[in-house]
């Protein structure tokens, strides 16, 4: 996923802030990752490298933790987050079909974010309202008894919301910073 304009600075200052408030011991690693994710919404590769540097743990181990636990996400959340529940009760009444319908509409797979960062799609296990199964959480609002036919309706509502904010939405993928980032990192490694 490409970084947006100004994102690199944001990541670095966030990691610095979290690290300065911790003892940097290994036991603190998971809480550090949790705090960084809480601030940034996800764990960019850059942040994991910085955390590894700061705590003196190999970057591979930090990456290992981030991929071992389900809580951590490596993709940025979209402007609109859709979470489809596939807990037992929801699965039994066709939650997987609903998930597939979303994948088709957004043209991404679960766990991914659209390249314009407008939508992200996730599967979660049990939101806690099994009586309303199948359940979909759209931008933190729980919607129960979602049939596949409802998917188009949800997407239309979200598109409506996005269009309203489009006018003052100037965030565009910052190609220059991204490529510079890479070369920066390579240089750093060579040194």
């Amino acid at each position, binding site marked *: 996923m490409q970084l947006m304009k100004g994102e690199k600075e944001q990541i670095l200052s966030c990691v610095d802030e979290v690290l300065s408030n911790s003892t940097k011991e290994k036991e603190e690693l998971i809480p550090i990752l*949790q705090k960084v994710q809480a601030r940034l919404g996800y764990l960019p590769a850059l942040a994991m490298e910085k955390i590894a540097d700061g705590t003196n743990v190999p970057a591979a181990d930090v990456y290992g933790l981030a991929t071992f636990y389900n809580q951590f996400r490596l993709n940025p959340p979209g402007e609109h987050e859709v979470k489809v529940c596939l807990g037992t*009760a929801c699965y*039994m009444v066709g939650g997987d079909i609903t998930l*597939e319908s979303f994948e088709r509409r957004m043209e991404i797979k679960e766990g991914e974010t659209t390249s314009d960062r407008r939508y992200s799609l996730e599967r*979660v296990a049990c939101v806690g*309202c099994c009586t309303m199964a199948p359940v979909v959480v759209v931008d933190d609002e729980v919607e129960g008894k979602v049939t596949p*036919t409802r998917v188009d309706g949800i997407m239309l509502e979200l598109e409506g919301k996005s269009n309203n904010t489009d006018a003052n939405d100037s965030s565009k993928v910052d190609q220059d910073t991204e490529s510079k980032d890479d070369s920066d990192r390579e240089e750093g490694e060579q040194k």
Partner: protein
Amino acid sequence: MSASSTEETYQSLHEEAKKKVDAKENKTQILVGTATCGVSAGALKIKEDFEREISDKGLDVEVVEVGCIGHCYAEPLAVIAKPGHPAICYGYLDDGLVHRLVEDFLDGDDPSYEYALAALERNDVFPTFEDFPRGVYEQKLILENCGFIDVRDIDSYIARDGYKALSKALGKDSSAVLEEIKAANLRGRGGAGFPAGLKWEACIKGDHDEKYVICNADEGDPGAFMDRSILESDPHLVIEGMILCAYAIGARKGYLYIRAEYPRAVGHVQEAIDQAREKRLLGESIMDTDFSFDLEIFQGSGAFVCGEATALVNSMEGNMGMPESRPPRLASQGFRGKPTVLNNVKTFAYVPYIINRGSDWFKEIGTKDNPGTAVFSLVGKVNNTGLVEVPMGTTLRELVFDVGDGLRENKEFKAVQIGGPSGGCLPESALDVPIDFDSLHEAGAIMGSGGLVVLDENDCMVSVSRYFLEFTQHESCGKCTFCRLGTRHMLDILDGITRGEGDAETLELLKELAEDVRDGSLCNLGKTAPNPVLTTLEYFMDEYKAHLEEGRCPAGVCRDLILYYIEPPKCSKLCNVCVGSCPTEAIFTRDDGLKEIDQEKCVKCDNCLKACPPEYDAIVKLSPPVLPPEKEKTAK
């Protein structure tokens, strides 16, 4: 420390709390259930609606956030306690109903019984929950306070004799707590049923100054929410249980390992810890004795395997949550290498009750070898889903048909899936099995943490076991080859079966693999992962055979074995709903006006079946996926 002084300290705490709570209870109170289940159903909005309506009318009514009362099927729920009336529980609330209740009941004096679920105390007017079949079988112990106490106010807990057990225990020697728990034969509620007293005793013997108490609230089973509900509804109960355990084993530090996916539980518990510290029930010299103990929350990052004791400890130490071989057990070498007691949320929740009321009282509930109650989250195709607590020894039949009030839409019962991904599927014939650790184990399932999913005729058992195996396969930490690769291979085979691929040997191989995974894995995740497959193979062999031999999915679930078909005689010709609902434009109108599905384009999304108006009901699923011959004729 003498017994009298801790009890005196407690008396003053209790009186103060009681005064505060009584003052509240003399006014009208609305208790809104705002555990996660309620919030998902819109309880926070209902609470706002109540508050707005009340302030509009200028009434003197307090709206309180409480936990889960257990009747999740009727969320959002609220209890209205108005002096002069019995407390009444209302379900299925919406803004209209809130308006009506405020106007008629709070402002006026008509309790609107037509919208009431049940009363909460005996009266001459309206039945209580105990008068329903569910109430006859249910016996609330650790759920007693859930839904009735203000979760954000410690006084609400103390007024209901909260922390009394602690004051009682602190007045005596610490060995008295251990003796009581051992005498009660309290078995760990995490699933395996290991006696808690023995675990604690082993930890006491552990030769070390530093010891830890950890509460396992890493509830990862998809479809189980008991631990979360208890932490959200009655956090002090668990905290008190942990303090008692710490006193018994001599620990000074404890942790609650709570899943980060449970933000409400984390928030409520943190608040509860802070309040307990303020009242000096936690921290340095508790209740002015020389016993000190403090608690901290560790947020688990969501890995099913971390429910396993050694994996949990590993993850607390900042590592990947991989289990290790035991012994050494945690009781001798646990967190940071020190003796550690790790128990489930529910196990700790029983402790204050046992200390308060005695082991003899506890042993009278349930069966001889399995005293106490069992807590289940009852979900799936039953009418009354929710959080239930029944004495051990209740049969599955009573749980499904009386407590759960039977199946929805009068469908035919097929199976119960008990114990989550580590449990098994039990058919009708096994319904008379009493619920306890040993009987369920014999039947091939496990008690597990307490998820209970009811399945009906529309559920495909192959698909169900595939679902659970997919879960455990994904959650396997990768340490043991059998678990890592064996479950992968089993999943591939099951995937094949859902497509109708394979023969009799496939099933043999599947069974053999399942047994190998069970025998060749280190921890219980791997040992129990094949359970759903093994039990379905044992009890539902005919369904596997239907998939393989006839290419047919009896329940019409496996999508490679079904096709959608519009029955010409039923199709209305004038309606276009199915055409509009199809995401891939597979449905078209024929020259004769009937609709037809282009099978090449169809992605089997189920949209048209749901969209077709019930008066026509023209779309059916066919399995095996063969079009009827007359259709082919007309198509030509």
